[in-house]
């Protein structure tokens, strides 16, 4: 981290009290009190807001396995596939239209070894040995389904509820609903893997919500946020002196305009920016962690170093009050195993298993797991019939996600797919249901979390969304 300012911050109160011409209303506003905003104007749109009901979790870490992990090779064993190996899809299953037109191909059983784990006896394959140790903390939902067939649409739907771009993402809705718990850091952070996320920024867009609520994609190299460092011609004291002048000019301008909360918010935004210059580099500085912690996440091994770092970063961020962290494994459809399941998934599972297990262990050890909802999953699962002999095609009709912590009971399996894992049959769970449930666990009712847009009271779940009560009750 080069050039990060070492800001010598006096307290906010000091700073404000020394300044002249600030009304008591303005002061109370800047100190985080409640000043009534003029109608139609927003004061601090990121101020913390009360939830609709008592929350179970304060933050979300979404571990997004991008490209579509195979549920029938990880969490949803299908012995029937052994019996039907090499046979075409029985007519009773119908003929799905798949992305690659593979529905006429023969069924392919999993090559994995399966075991029940923990006291709950949760099934996990040998591709996730470390995650399996946390079986009793996992709530595995085997009956998920989604609308899209391709990556762009499906990743977008898992993030925004719609396969078409333009709607707010879950992180944006959550930030809109609850505000930020830490004003010095972005409330919604996205961590990509080696490649860019399929579909790009629309997946963390604020859609029609004010832009404030959009996710911030942390950059991998250099400062995590654009323009975080001072320009190379401006030193720390110089920046502070310039900011003091800006504050004076802004107070001068705001004089006699106390009713205009925008002006006060703007005055405040420069101080927030200044604090963020210190807070963000500190938050992403993994050198502050012990070797033991880094090892726990697999940062010491090449195969797990990258995702391990993202998982550790996710913990550091929620620890500091970031509301929603989305950590992509294999962004750019790297889990997409149309050929060579064994090679592809072997590699992807290896790179994510230890980091995820490390995250769960670390959150638990720090007492953060109870208040952090961890969600694992991709945009869809994979087909029981083969593609190109040794791969699997996209399967949005039945797939698995799991939740852990944040009030999820753990040691549970919810719903089933059919005997071969093609379609959700018992207790089908749509993407909207997943979204409704996550919001519920954070204290928000998805039906009441609305925003007026073009004449519609829009909500995160469009016209759907049923709570998956078994997750938390």
């Amino acid at each position, binding site marked *: 981290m080069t050039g990060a300012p070492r800001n010598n911050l006096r307290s906010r109160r000091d700073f404000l009290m020394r300044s002249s011409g600030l009304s008591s209303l303005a002061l109370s506003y800047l100190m985080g009190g409640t000043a009534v905003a003029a109608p139609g104007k927003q004061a601090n749109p990121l101020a913390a807001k009360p939830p609709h009901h008592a929350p179970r979790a304060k933050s979300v870490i979404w571990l997004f396995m991008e490209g579509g992990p195979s549920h029938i090779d990880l969490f949803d064993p299908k012995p029937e596939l052994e019996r039907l190996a090499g046979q075409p899809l029985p007519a009773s299953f119908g003929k799905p239209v798949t992305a690659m037109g593979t529905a006429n191909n023969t069924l392919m059983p999993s090559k994995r070894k399966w075991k029940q784990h923990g006291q709950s006896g949760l099934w996990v394959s040998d591709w996730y040995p470390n995650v399996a140790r946390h079986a009793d903390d996992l709530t595995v939902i085997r009956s998920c389904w989604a609308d899209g067939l391709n990556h762009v649409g499906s990743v977008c739907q898992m993030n925004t509820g719609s396969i078409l771009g333009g709607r707010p993402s879950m992180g944006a809705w959550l930030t809109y609903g609850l505000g930020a718990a830490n004003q010095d850091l972005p409330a919604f952070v996205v961590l990509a893997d080696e490649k860019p996320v399929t579909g790009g920024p629309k997946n963390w867009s604020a859609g029609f919500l004010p*832009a404030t609520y959009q996710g911030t994609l942390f950059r991998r190299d250099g400062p995590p*946020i*654009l323009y*975080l460092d001072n*320009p190379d011609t401006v030193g720390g*004291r110089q920046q502070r002196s310039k900011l003091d*002048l800006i504050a004076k000019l802004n107070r001068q301008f705001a004089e006699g305009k106390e009713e205009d909360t925008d002006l006060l918010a703007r005055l405040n935004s420069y101080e927030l920016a200044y604090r963020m210059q210190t807070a963000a580099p500190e938050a992403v500085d993994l050198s502050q962690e012990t070797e033991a912690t880094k090892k726990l996440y697999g940062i010491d091994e090449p195969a797990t170093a990258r995702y391990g770092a993202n998982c550790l970063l996710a913990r550091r961020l929620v620890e500091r009050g970031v509301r929603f962290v989305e950590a992509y494994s294999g962004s750019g459809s790297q889990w997409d195993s149309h050929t060579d399941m064994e090679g592809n998934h072997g590699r992807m599972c290896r790179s994510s298993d230890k980091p995820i297990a490390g995250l769960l262990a670390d959150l638990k050890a720090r007492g953060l797991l109870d208040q952090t909802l961890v969600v694992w999953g991709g945009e869809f699962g994979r087909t029981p019939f083969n593609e190109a002999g040794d791969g699997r095609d996209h399967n949005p009709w039945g797939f698995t996600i799991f939740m852990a912590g944040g009030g999820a009971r753990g040691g549970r399996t919810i719903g089933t797919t059919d005997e071969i894992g093609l379609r959700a049959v018992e207790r089908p769970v749509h993407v909207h249901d997943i979204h409704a449930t996550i919001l519920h666990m954070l204290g928000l009712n998805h039906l009441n979390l609305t925003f007026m847009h073009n004449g*519609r009271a829009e909500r995160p779940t469009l016209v759907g969304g049923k709570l998956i009560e078994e997750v938390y009750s």
Partner: protein
Amino acid sequence: MHRAFVVLAAAAILALAAPPAADRFRAAQRRYWVFQPVVKSAVPAGAAWGTNPIDAFAGAKLAEKGIKPSAEADKVTLLRRVYFDLTGLPPEPRDVDAFLADQSATAYESVVDRLLASPGYGERWARHWLDLARYAESDGFRADDIRANAWRYRDYVIRSFNADKPYNRFVEEQIAGDEMWPADLEAKVATAFNRHYPDEYNAQNLRARRQEILNDITDTVGSVFLGLTFECARCHDHKFDPILQADYYRLQAFFSNISADDEFPMLSPEAHAAYQKKLAAWESKTADIRARMSAVVKAARDRQVKSRYTAYVEEVKKSLDKPADERTPMELWMADKAKYFMNPAEETLAAGLKGEAKATYKRLKAELDQFRNLHPGPLPKGTGITELTGEPIPAHVLSVGVYDKPLEKVEPGFLTILDPEPAVIVPPANGKSTGRRTALAKWLTDPANPITARVMVNRIWHYHFGRGIVGSPSDFGMMGERPTHPELLDWLAAEFVQSGWSMKHMHRLIMTSRTYRQSSAHRPDAAEKDPSNRLLWRYERRRLEAESIRDTSLAVSGLLDRELCGPSVRPGAGSHHRRSIYTFLRRNSLYPILEAFDLPDTHLSCGRRSATTTAPQALTYLNSEQGMEWARGFAGRVLEQAGPDRGKQVETAYRLAYSRSPGGKEKDIALSFFAQHESIVAGRAAAGGKLAAPENLPASVSRVEAAALVDFCHALMNSSEFVYVN
């Protein structure tokens, strides 16, 4: 048949058929104001407040509530307001001086007229329209492919505003320019309004792709021109507004046959003929070389075409197998979409060559290049909308909006509540298109249409005041906001049509009103009665929009390049100095400085921007290279005009940034800043730190002094006064 059966059968038929349209709307929907004719009521008499009819209407409302209007804003405030509003740029100090010196009764009016006639007006107001048109220069989706000629539409909009093109003509060109003025290239470019949909060009499922395009167009046309949320009626009858599900598909049916036309020549017929002649000469000279080049890539071409063909569903394969004249309209459309993949560009194929083939191709290419002087150069191309045949692709209501679940067939038609009959379509004589869009365009611009003019005058009002008479400019429906001044809205709508749909007439009318010229000062007495200023007892202070913030920074720093129109500037290589409207607009990667200040997402039409205040905005302005570059430019200008004297520098900087002189207290603040800041900068310089310095530093000014001035100028640019319009 026995009489009893006849009666029974009739009853059964009645029970089966949909209830007559008349029964499908609630009385409140039928009475809803938007669907009533525009009435130009008499201007309220007796209001002593000015002679402008706007003031009579607004003044009467205020009087009803016992609120006095505010006094006129001071001259400098007013001048800045008018400059930002019409051009998005501040006045230069000499403009301020001239205005202050002009004591004539029409000083203000002549500034408005002068700015309306300046090219900056079009650059500013076109940007509003581009928000509505969800204009972008790339596809969106994963590939986010470039739309190389989309900028021509942007220029079309700029030129249309500058020429005060009548709004009815402006609408007609964008909906059906290709049908109504087939010989007019500008009208053809205008049709790109319906080409700005996000699109996945390599989608396999062509029917789904077509439906998504049509949905986007239906939603956009419905909200931009009619101010109605048609998209709610995609799956079911609109829950609140009188828009039937069938109305959604009736509107969509006007666009059944549209197809993107991305390669039409932007040349007059004569120029195009000359071009073709020259090209033909080059082609005949190079036929042999090109045939040999083509042979080198043949294998790659065959492979790609085959793999793509194999991947298509049967229906597409079938369309491709048929000769063009045997294809149904739908097959024509599908084959047209597949065309790109069935005729892959030779350069793309050549890029994948290896080994000997690569070397051969390279050699042949070099040979071909010998004839470059004979080639007429790349053909200037435009992007827009066309139709592939005059025979329409049948349109259907879709069950819950699903593309492959068609219900009953529909013909193009307008809102049932206004006109339940199918639209009367007159196919153009050339038989090349259906004539459907022409019918829609004419319906939209019919002076008797109660919606179009209301929606547009309200948009104009919205951009001038920051809030429309209807506060939800793209939603006039029952869930939108009600007009605060319904009679005024109707009066303006009628005036708009009577003026020949002149937008400049509306600007002039609004901006010369006293209502517009009020001070923005807060008044507790008025705020108590009308806290949200709905009745316009003052002018509402506003933050500048993203483009204006950047353009103003460039202007104040003396760096702004005022070149008008042309291809967009890709900001990849650092900064550029053209106005923001010329920044390349890529859907998946917006220009960070503009994005930070609420440039809207381009996937959907945007009728009302947010104005957020965030820490990343501050970071962007404080720390970006551009911010510093502007500050250096600004400081250079100050030094050039004021020399080394700090007092003069402060005076000059204030005049450039704020169009006014600093007050006594402000001068003190500035001078004490310099005293303290200079020592900090000096310390930095002594420690070998890099300093910011303007170019052409005069000998009388040290580098430390100059760097302190850069920071002072940077602070002014970061201040609220710089980005707020009073």
